[in-house]
Each structure stands twice: as structure tokens, then as C-alpha cells.
């Protein structure tokens, strides 16, 4: 076990996975540091769920390697699963059972002596304690998602792997979910989640953008945003001029001196692309 494996909750090297003629993952390499929220951002069909299932040991890779907390994701999957919580893309709980019954069933696999207390803590965390005995089929979509999150949290795992946890969730609940994720991270946990909502990338500590089974970039959100273009509007004594630049921090001084504008500048307004636009731009370029 090398030092990187210890520092990184997840480490993926040259991962390839095909389903017949479809190349779902094409040489994916990335690492998710411990104690952070890591976001895997990409459109539908980009390979997010395949990567997540590989991390959880539910899919074997065709090539490359996946290490989770320093352990091989396939060979040592049973040891990993004791330390990992998984929330699938679909709710994947029994509709005819209550949250209490569902959590008790999945929780009994871990063999903890304080299962009842843990179920209570998890359901209180997602604010479903009052509805613990109602069957899941009586719940709204958001409540079902919360039940699913509670199930993933039950054994208080070091690593939470969440596959599109906010898909189909209304904006208020999305906000609540992100508060939960940040709170869990603040307690020392690591969260690896996927999303196709580009704007959610800003909530992450680190983001990987995936498209057609390939990672386009892995950086902190602000770093990714800095890769976008900026529009600089300079108001001069005799009017306004607008420039489009790739990197405004380095290009602005050059621009002012090259155009001889410094002495006549009244104000400078910089409009940077949003993180969402930068990611969409990356994905769009890749598509072309």
C-alpha cells in the first residue's frame, strides 16, 4: 500500500470497461482525496454509473485498476463494503416495507449491536423519523431518495458513494441534501458522488468532468472555472471596449498596456463564465 492510496479514498488507473461494442469507460484515471466531497460531473450516458459500480465492486473492469481506501475494488470488495456506503441511482429499497424495515434489513448485514440506535440516527438525519413505519410506496420521490440516503449512512461509513443522489429532487431538497453532504464531510467522511446537474459542481471540493467514458479534467471547481473565458468591459474617457479573453488574470495587464489604455480607464468590469458554462463548454467541445 503506497502513500497515495492512504491519502486517497479512491484511486483509479487506466480503467476500461466495455459492454459489447459500447466503450463505457475508456482509460479513466482519477483520484479522490479523503475528507472531501468529490463530484463526478457529466451528461447521461457518460460512464458515471459504470465508474461508480466499478468502485463498489459491482462491475469488474476490463483493464486498469481501482483502489478504494488502498484495497483492490474487486478482489477485496468484501473488506471495502464494510467501510463504504452506496446510494444507487434508483431508490433500490423495498416499496412495500417501511424505512425502518428496509434499514433494519440492510443494516443487519453489518452486524452492529446498536442497529436500532443507528437506524434512528440515520432517519433523524434525513428527517424521516416520524414516518419510519409507513410503507415506502406512500412516500414522495424526495422522501424515497432520503430513505435511500439514510440506508447508505446506516453503518456510518468512511466513504459514501452516491450515484446521482439529487436526480429528480426539487431545489429545496437538493439544498438540504448538499447541507447533509457537507455535514458528513465535516465529520471526517469522504463523499464521492455523480451528478448530471452541472451547477452542483460548485458544491464539491474537487470535480472530475466525464464525457464518453473519458475524464476531461479533474480539478477544484474554481480551477475549472478559471479555464473558462472572460468578457472584459473597459470604460474609457471616450467610450467602452469589450474583449474576450481566455485567462483574464494574466491577459488583462497585457491588454491594457498593449492598447495603451491605462491612463484613460474609468472602470473595468470582468464577466467570467460560470462553472456550469465552462463545464458545458468542455462537454460540448468534446462532442464536436
Amino acid at each position, binding site marked *: 500500500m503506497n502513500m497515495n492510496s492512504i491519502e486517497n479514498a479512491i484511486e483509479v488507473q487506466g480503467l476500461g470497461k466495455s459492454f459489447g461494442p459500447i466503450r463505457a469507460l475508456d482509460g479513466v484515471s482519477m483520484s479522490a482525496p479523503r475528507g472531501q466531497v468529490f463530484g463526478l460531473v457529466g451528461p447521461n450516458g457518460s460512464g458515471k454509473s459504470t465508474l461508480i*459500480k466499478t468502485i*463498489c*465492486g*459491482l*462491475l469488474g473492469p476490463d483493464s486498469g485498476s481501482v483502489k478504494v481506501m488502498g484495497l483492490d475494488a474487486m478482489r477485496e470488495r*468484501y473488506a471495502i*463494503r*464494510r467501510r*463504504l456506503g*452506496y446510494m*444507487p*441511482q*434508483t*431508490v*433500490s*429499497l*423495498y416499496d*412495500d*416495507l417501511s424505512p425502518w*424495515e428496509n434499514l*433494519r*434489513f*440492510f*443494516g*443487519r*448485514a*453489518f*452486524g452492529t449491536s446498536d442497529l436500532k440506535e443507528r437506524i434512528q440516527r440515520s432517519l433523524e438525519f434525513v428527517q424521516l423519523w416520524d414516518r419510519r413505519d409507513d*410503507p415506502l410506496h406512500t412516500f414522495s420521490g424526495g422522501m424515497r431518495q432520503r430513505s435511500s440516503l439514510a*440506508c447508505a449512512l446506516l453503518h456510518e461509513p468512511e466513504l459514501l458513494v452516491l450515484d446521482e443522489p439529487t436526480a429528480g429532487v426539487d431545489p429545496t431538497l437538493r439544498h438540504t441534501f448538499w447541507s447533509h453532504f457537507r455535514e458528513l464531510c465535516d465529520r471526517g467522511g469522504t463523499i464521492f458522488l455523480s451528478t448530471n446537474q452541472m451547477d452542483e459542481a460548485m458544491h464539491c471540493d474537487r470535480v472530475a468532468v466525464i464525457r464518453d467514458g473519458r475524464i476531461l479534467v479533474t480539478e477544484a471547481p474554481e480551477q475549472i472555472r478559471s479555464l473558462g473565458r472572460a468578457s472584459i468591459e473597459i470604460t474609457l474617457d471616450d467610450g467602452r471596449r469589450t474583449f474576450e479573453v481566455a485567462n483574464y488574470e494574466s491577459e488583462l495587464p497585457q491588454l491594457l498596456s498593449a492598447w495603451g489604455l491605462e491612463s484613460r480607464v474609468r472602470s473595468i468590469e470582468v464577466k467570467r463564465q460560470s462553472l456550469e458554462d465552462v463545464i458545458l463548454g468542455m462537454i460540448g467541445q468534446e462532442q464536436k
Partner: protein
Amino acid sequence: MIRRVNATAVRINAQLRRDHRFLGLSLAVPLILIFLLKYVFDSMPGIVRFGINFSDYALLIAAYLVHFLAYVLSTIVLVRDRITGTLSRMFVSGYRRREIVLGYVAGYATIASAQTALVLVSTNYLFDINIWRDIVAIVLTMLALALVSVGLGVFLSNFARNEGQVFPLIPLVIIPTALLSGMAIPIDNLPEVLQWVSNLVPLTWAVKVLKGVTVEDVSFFHVMGPFITLVAYGLVLLFLASLTLRESE
């Protein structure tokens, strides 16, 4: 391991208790079919002249019903678990393949036992059979058959990716079972190749035991060979099912 097998069985039983319609139908359908059988047999009294005693068949058909229902039920439920992602979640939560398979057997043993009890009591009441004399042999055979059925259902569910794909698998088992098990046609009357194939049909071994203790009036000890074969068949199927249960697509 026992904790997880028990947890699976408890969960399945909780689901069965909640689904009143399913529970009702699972218990009512075998009864309805036994009553239908009685009605059909009673409407053809003349056939007795050809040496056919319907009562000899009633218990065999009852066993066939238990086998059929437990097989179909376990196949569909496991495929549904796979489609909804609950099976994947079980794996990630730490359940092992053998624990899931044994949990299903233990869970469905309850409903299979209830079906067996109803079928036996109704058969005993409606037909000229005294099941009480050989009750131990009959119940053990029925339960072993249920074990085979669940194992077969779990094993074959690996070949279906959705509930629709389960349906072609149903006649694949049920029709050869009806034709080759000795339930309707004596095995000795089949061509030699089919006689050999009949050994692969699990119901064949149950029929040998049930026919032995009821029609041929031999002791359970005399038909211990087919009974052990039936149990071994079930264990092999469960082993195969737990080996082949896919953790993911």
C-alpha cells in the same frame, strides 16, 4: 452467515405479510386447482373402467402444483430484485451470494409449507387418499421439492434480465416436468432416451417417493433412495444458484 440468512428470510416474510393479495392468491390458487381437478375427475367416472384411479394422481398433481408455484415465484422475485437494484444494494451492504440464496429458501419455505399444508389437507378431504399414514414422508418430500423449486428458480433467474424474459423459462421447466416426471405418463412407457432425460427432472424423484408410499404402499425407507436424490438435487441446485448469482449486469 446465519444472521444474514435469517435477516433475508424475515424480510421476505414481512413482504409477504404486507402483500395481502399476493398471499391470498398464493394460497387460494392451489386450492382452486385441486377443486378443479376433483370436478374434472368426478365428471369422467367411466374412465375408471380403463384401470385409471384418479386418486393415485391427485397427490402427484398436488406436488406438481407446489413445485410449479415455488419455482415461478422465486424466479420472478429474484429477477425483480435485480431490476430494482435491491440485489446490488444487498451485495454492497455485505450480503454474500450463498446467504441470499439460503435466505430466499428459508423465506419461501414458509409460504411453500403453507401451500403444501393446504394442498395436502384438501387432497385428503376431496380424494380417496389417506395422507396421515405416510404424512412424514409426504411432508418431507414436499418440502424437499420446494427446496429444489427455489434453487431452480434462483438458478434460472440468472438467465433473465427482466420479468418478461422469465416467461419463456416457465414452460421450459413445467412442460417437460409434466410429461417426463412419471406424474401423468409412467416412465417405463417413455422411449429410452426420454427415460434417461426423466432422471434430470426433479419432480421424477418426488413422484417416485409419493407413488411408493401411497400407491405402491411401501415404507418410506424403501423409497429413501429417490428421496435422498431429490434432496441432493436441491442442494446441488442451491450450490449452482449461489455460484452463478450475478452481483451485477
